């Protein structure tokens, strides 16, 4: 699936949920299903600044593509980072760097997750971009 297709898919998935609580149920599920993140990787340099809850993000490059892993101590945040990962993992640096991350607003996350949380989201996005641009 191309990046565009995957984003479209996420937008459609979210459009199924009218109710905020259902969106959260979905994010919680996503969070719970996120692949385990090794404790020893929860280091300062992998911690994303600007989130109220703690979020760790790591990237590995394989065959010219970036693969992300992540964790958070809050489950909804974990669901959000999980969602981002599911979209951006396996893409090339160029693809990620060129993306505008606008789909996040389209699924209503940005507006509705409060400014602090939104800042967290912005921080997550910025970190993903930075990883794509510079590597760690």
């Amino acid at each position, binding site marked *: 699936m191309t990046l565009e297709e995957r984003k479209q898919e996420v937008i459609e998935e979210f459009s199924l949920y009218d109710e905020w609580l259902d969106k959260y149920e979905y994010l919680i599920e996503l969070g719970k299903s996120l692949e385990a993140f090794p404790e020893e990787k929860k280091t300062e340099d992998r911690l994303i600044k600007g989130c*109220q809850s703690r979020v760790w993000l790591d990237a590995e490059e394989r065959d010219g593509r970036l693969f992300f892993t992540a964790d958070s*101590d809050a489950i909804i945040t974990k669901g959000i980072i999980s969602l981002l990962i599911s979209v951006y993992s396996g893409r090339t640096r160029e693809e990620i760097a060129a993306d505008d991350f606008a789909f996040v607003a389209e699924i209503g996350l940005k507006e509705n997750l409060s400014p602090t949380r939104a800042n967290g989201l912005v921080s997550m996005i910025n970190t993903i971009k930075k990883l794509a641009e510079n590597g760690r």
Partner: protein
Amino acid sequence: MSLTQIRSQFPILDTQVYGKPLVYLDNAASAQRPQAVVDCWKGLVEGSNANIHRAVHHLAAQATDAYEGARDRVKSFLNAEAREEIVFTSGATASMNLVAFSYGQVFVNQGDEIIVSVGEHHSNIVPWQMLCERKGAMLRVLETEENGLLSPAKLQGLLSERTRIVAITHISNVLGLVNPVKELVSVCHEAGVPVLVDGAQGVVHEKVDVQDLDCDFYAFSGHKIYAATGTGVLYGKRKWLDAMPPYMGGGEMIETVRFSGTTYAPLPMKFEAGTQNFNAVPTLVPALDFAQAVREEKAVADEQEAILAYVYDALMQDERITLYGTAREAKVPLFSFAVKGVHHEDLALILDKMGIAVRSGQMCAEPLMDHLGVTGLLRASFAPYNTLEEAKYFIASLNKAINMLI
């Protein structure tokens, strides 16, 4: 005044969030403002708007009267001895910084000690840390008892020859317990040590009589007690305020400004540098009137007591929940708690979507969080316009949210 009448004074309570009726339980962060406060502000801006004190024209006279009238109201509200002991600031934080700087400037020297409690808000810790750093003084920390209260005996044990001031909270914004301030002050005064009381929460829940408490300083914010934001009060005993240098310079806090040397105005002007918040300070009058009126209203007291009992019991009985600040006899309807295996922020986000505004996180009391061994808590804090029904909806919603997350 019935609860309905009280609620009708707060149009914001009819707001819908995400299509649900707003249940505002973040009152400890900031209260809502009654219609009388809005009207007061608007009336001043539209009818009596001019800079205060010096000008001799009509609008300035009206604005000054409103501002100085607020000082009289605060004086009577706190039962201060003199109006000169009431200093207006931009908030409790500014009040405490003022004392830390100006008292510290004269009375705190290298090797001296300052005592704060572990349960203090950052605003009653950081200014003292900054002072200690400037002066080479040391901060001593009074721990809370198991039930969350401060103990006069333990404080006594911490006082030393070098203690210069004790800064403690009337009611912690996390624990929601009324500390035995009068006894704490008495213990300090026996040792000749003055006491600053952080009354940011205390003034909201308790009738405060500074002469009875005999505290040396009492600080609070307008916005937590229904007044406009940007307003704050520092009560200080005249003997201290007189002995302290100004905190900020400029405007009319002076007697004479010369490059060869400046002399300062008498109290309270000495501490009110620059143009004061003259549109907002007078809103303290309707705000404190409201606070006093609801406090004296049996219907309100009963509802508050019912809320307190209901929420306290519900939280204490739920095995997944750990409530902090459990001393029932000293409790006000302000509850901070942890839910086992669940992040406070997740709860706050879900409750928000149910229309409920609660606070999550460290609540500007990180040392207390560390002391309690948590990264943050969830807090629900009630005001006189909250109902038992809302409390029940909160507990039911909390239960639902926990179940979603576990």
